[in-house]
């Protein structure tokens, strides 16, 4: 069985990191794109431990290649041929996305615009207006951060806003300083910025 970790372009070497089953990593040339795989003798459990091992491999790959497209932890392929067959119809899209993330990493920013303050609940109108104000403030933070990134994505999760930015590798520290400046102009916002990560948020096709 073949476990797929990521697609890569400009893969200079394979990391020493072991895979989900303790296996050595290998590459499968798909024609200008490398699939980074591990050969397993039996299926591994779909548990947190395996997911973390999968994630470690992906993160270890980032400095080894010009571009890395992480693949979600999933069921293994029966063989290398099955992997090639499954990847063939998607290769054009994979190449395009590899080009988009080339030389970049993901920086994640999570923020709550008003810290832990609950929404005002005096009446229906103030609730809705407060909701609109918070969303607008989050959009403003996101827009300010996105200015210094190659691309950005914002998603709401209840009262939290989670954003991901594609940032050129040499510019990660400058981006973090920009996050500091933006955070200072939104004094009430609780914010945490982490990275650099493999570009998970930019790995899949989105509408």
């Amino acid at each position, binding site marked *: 069985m073949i476990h797929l970790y990521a697609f890569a372009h400009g893969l200079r070497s394979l990391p020493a990191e072991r895979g989900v089953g303790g296996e050595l990593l290998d590459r499968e040339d798909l024609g200008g794109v490398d699939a980074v795989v591990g050969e397993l003798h039996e299926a591994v459990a779909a548990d947190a431990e395996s997911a*973390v091992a999968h994630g470690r491999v992906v993160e270890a790959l980032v400095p080894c290649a010009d571009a890395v497209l992480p693949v979600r932890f999933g069921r293994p392929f029966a063989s290398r041929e099955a992997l090639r067959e499954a990847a063939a119809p998607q290769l054009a899209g994979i190449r395009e996305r590899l080009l988009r993330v080339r030389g970049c990493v993901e920086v994640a920013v999570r923020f*709550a615009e008003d810290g832990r303050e609950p929404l005002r609940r005096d009446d229906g109108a103030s609730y809705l207006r407060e*909701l609109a104000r918070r969303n607008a403030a989050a959009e403003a933070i996101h827009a300010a951060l996105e200015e210094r990134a190659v691309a950005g994505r914002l998603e709401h999760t209840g009262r939290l806003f989670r954003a991901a930015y594609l940032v050129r590798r040499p510019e990660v520290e400058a981006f973090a300083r920009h996050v500091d400046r933006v955070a200072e102009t939104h004094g009430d916002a609780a914010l945490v910025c982490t*990275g650099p990560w493999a570009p998970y948020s930019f790995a899949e096709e989105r509408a």
Partner: protein
Amino acid sequence: MSRVLTSHGDLDALSEPMRAFPSRVSADPETVERGLAQLVLTLIELLRQLMERQALRRMDEGSLSDDEVERLGLTFMKLADRMDELKEHFELRDEDLNLNLGPLGDLL
């Protein structure tokens, strides 16, 4: 694997429990009720978010009267309260109310 580059403010406000892996509806008879509740609440949350965005957009455009803003606000407030109660009852978190749609990304 956390690599914090910078942080500001009350970080407890940003804490989220670790996401269970994998996220799926369990067929175990003892937990099937929770799994189904998760699926149903995910769809309700999708509709709630769509309606909320629509209401905010219409409010922004000025196409809602004061009475309508008040009524819609109250409706969303009560719906949010009810959702919180149901999430607590079924021990679900905000991030549990989502579905991965493969190449289309997440539902919410």
